[in-house]
């Protein structure tokens, strides 16, 4: 392999994408559709026009953030699958500030965004503290926290944030707390730039600072981290806080950065599963913040392009979902396997 080392993960990921697409193509073919036509529709539907591209990016925005949550966890040697719950709380926090606390324009948007991030981070502290000082396994505690967050957020949304007469959702974000819509053609807002910016900041932090180095060291080799004087508790808390900030931002992005509702559904329907989807995105993105951005665009393309595939080629929506699954599987499994193998090897 002559590819430069830095590009190797990229080529490997592309190859697995191709593998997943081939397998998915066989499935489409087995159901009596033309894989070529289906994939053309997928590509055109995702990237064919400006508005499709923008919509693809709108779907990608929250995923790159929840992927970041998982990726930072993995980099620190933790399986933080709590993005889902942290994101719920982030959405609640953003909704509260955006919808119920009037502020001047400019300040309000920033405050709502920060409120969402802070809420996500605070929620992430629970499993972090349990892990760091009580040794509770983060997989178990984050799963439990996800459930608690679900019910807590629904409770808060229905009882304290509800819009009178609109029980299906909370009060909408005030106009001063909404990210500008980039184009009337799609639901993409400027929150995309915040998401990308945050991912890049995290990247710079992990690879460019002493604390980021220690965090990655703890994930790469916990014993070597002890040797290097890294306190494991601090790494746990730090990685959970960064992950919580990202997940909280993801939740906020769907409230103050996604028309037309500009609010949180009482069922949390406009945010549910984004956190779990982020795990797959992170795996495809090789647990790298920049890889996560690219992988999120790919997932966004599947979501948006699948629509045209369904519409034009008549591929059943269930099949579109299965196709997504296969591609995710093909892409995620090798990485997941390496992760597990390294964990078991210890």
């Amino acid at each position, binding site marked *: 392999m002559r590819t430069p080392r830095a590009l190797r993960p990229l080529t490997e990921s592309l190859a697995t994408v191709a593998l997943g697409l081939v397998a998915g193509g066989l499935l489409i073919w087995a159901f009596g559709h033309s894989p070529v036509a289906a994939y053309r529709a997928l590509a055109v539907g995702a990237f064919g026009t400006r508005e499709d591209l923008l919509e693809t990016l709108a779907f990608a925005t929250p995923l790159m953030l929840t992927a970041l949550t998982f990726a930072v966890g993995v980099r620190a040697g933790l399986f933080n699958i709590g993005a889902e719950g942290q994101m719920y709380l982030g959405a609640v926090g953003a909704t509260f500030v955006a919808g119920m606390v009037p502020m001047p324009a400019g300040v309000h948007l920033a405050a709502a965004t920060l409120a969402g991030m802070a809420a996500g981070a605070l929620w992430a502290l629970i499993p972090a503290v349990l892990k760091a000082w009580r040794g509770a396994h983060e997989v178990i505690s984050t799963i439990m926290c996800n459930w608690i967050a679900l019910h807590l957020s629904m409770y808060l949304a229905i009882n304290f944030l509800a819009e009178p007469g609109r029980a299906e959702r909370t009060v909408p974000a005030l106009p001063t707390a909404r990210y500008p819509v980039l184009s009337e053609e799609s639901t993409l807002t400027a929150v995309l730039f915040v998401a990308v910016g945050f991912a890049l900041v995290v990247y710079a932090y992990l690879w460019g600072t002493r604390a980021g180095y220690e965090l990655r060291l703890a994930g*790469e*080799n916990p014993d070597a981290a002890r040797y290097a004087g890294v306190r494991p508790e601090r790494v746990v808390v730090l990685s959970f806080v960064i992950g919580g900030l990202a997940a909280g931002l993801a939740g906020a992005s769907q409230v103050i950065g996604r028309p037309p509702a500009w609010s949180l559904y009482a069922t949390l329907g406009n945010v549910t599963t984004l956190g779990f989807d982020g795990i797959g995105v992170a795996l495809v993105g090789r647990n790298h913040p920049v890889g996560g951005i690219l992988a999120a665009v790919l997932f966004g393309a599947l979501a948006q392009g699948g629509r045209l595939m369904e519409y034009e080629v008549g591929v059943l929506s269930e099949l579109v979902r299965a196709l997504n699954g296969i591609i995710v599987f093909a892409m995620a499994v090798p990485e997941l396997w390496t992760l597990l193998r390294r964990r078991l090897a210890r």
Partner: protein
Amino acid sequence: MREQAPRVQMRGIHKVYPDGTAALKGVDFRVHAGEIVALLGENGAGKTTLMKVLSGLLRPTRGAIFVDGRPVLFRNPSDALRCGIGMVHQVFTLVPPFTALQNVLLGQEGTGALSPLPEASARARVAALLEEVGLEVPLDVPVESLPVGVQQRVEICKTLYRGTSVLILDEPTSALTPVEVEEFFRFLRRLRDRGAAIVLITHKLREVLEVSDRVVVLRQGLVAGELPTSSATAEKLAELMVGQLTALRVRKSPRAPGKPVLSVRGLTVRNDQGRVAVRDLSFDVREGEIVGVAGVEGNGQSELVQALTGLRQPDSGEVYLEGERVPFVEPLALYRRGLAHVPEDKARFGLALGFDLVENSILGRQREPQFVRRLGRLNRPVILRYAQDLVRRFHVVAPDLATPVRSLSGGNQQRLLVGREISKEPRLVVAMHPTRGLDVASTLYIRELLVQMRDAGKAVLLVSADLDEVLELSDRIAVMYAGQFVGLGPADQFRRETVGLLMGGVVPADDADAARAPSPH
């Protein structure tokens, strides 16, 4: 040398691994019945690969194997076993909670996955076999509660019970005390005299000379030489092994030690299982001296080193660095006061294998002001220059600095690690097994570095299971047994045999005084 056909013959064996490494480049090898052949070579010379081919674990890329003159093709170890070829690996394949008898019977032909082990009927046969070859194994004790040496006997018994007449042993003595080694060799000779063909993989010259009938030396995948043991000398074998006449001894000039750098007083440390591993230990290491701690592994050396280097909380005791009492479990504080630590397992403690050379070069030093800029940012240019400097100064061979350390050879990994530690300009160097698993060149280099540190006035604490290393480098020697020093004194007071006995927990009569009252200096 012998007229009869060899029991096993290998011709022109090539083995290229999937990653492109050519481990064997056309090796001829044979072993006769009633003969002990020593297969000698450095790490990576191809010894183990060759024997894995013979025992059916690996398939050769090219080449042929003959058993009793007939060509054979081994697809798996069972095929080899059917021809009477069995291998005992360095890592045992025993089921810890099973008894020795159960382990011997496990996986035998005729026992299905679900059928009960035919213990009763087999007991007599196993006992008879042990009697015949003169091995002592308690059959009804779970093997996990047996000492390593006895576990090895179980492993051998298991192999013999399957009808093995060609026995391959991979570094069998590495886990044994000197006393156990002697007993083991007696067993091997007995087995040979009964007509078995034995291949002994080793890199210890002394063992070769002591027990083998014939020596085959491998070097870089080729046979470097073959000779009857009777006409071999240690120097000659070493030359064949290394390929050049290297001074096996590190040059070391006498030097008077200075004031104590490390002082340990009444240190007691428990192991992971909560048992006392280091018991009330007191000693000093002074400027310009190497204190070598010998001992069979598992006598508390790891716990001692971990306690001294901030990786383990001791139960009680005090540690002073240059007269100042140091806190426990704060490695950074220790580093700041001049500790350099070459840990026992470089891949586990000293390096992050997935990180590149640059990032590994600051492992443990990542907080030093020279490497950090404002806002906690790493100072890339400085770190890069420093990593380049390390690579150059300590002759680390790597394609480039962005290579993950994982893909470096063990020797180069250790050069990077030792280089990093030494470049701290420490007051005290604590090194454990610093040359374990390294090639001869790296071994010599690292030993020289340790001596240089001593000559530069640093205090060096060397803990090693390699007796030769301890004897060769140390100014003072301690032997650790059951968590205590059973001897501590000037190196010239220790004869090899004495140390061997002390390691086995036997205090020789003429050294009894030294052992009973270990002086702190």
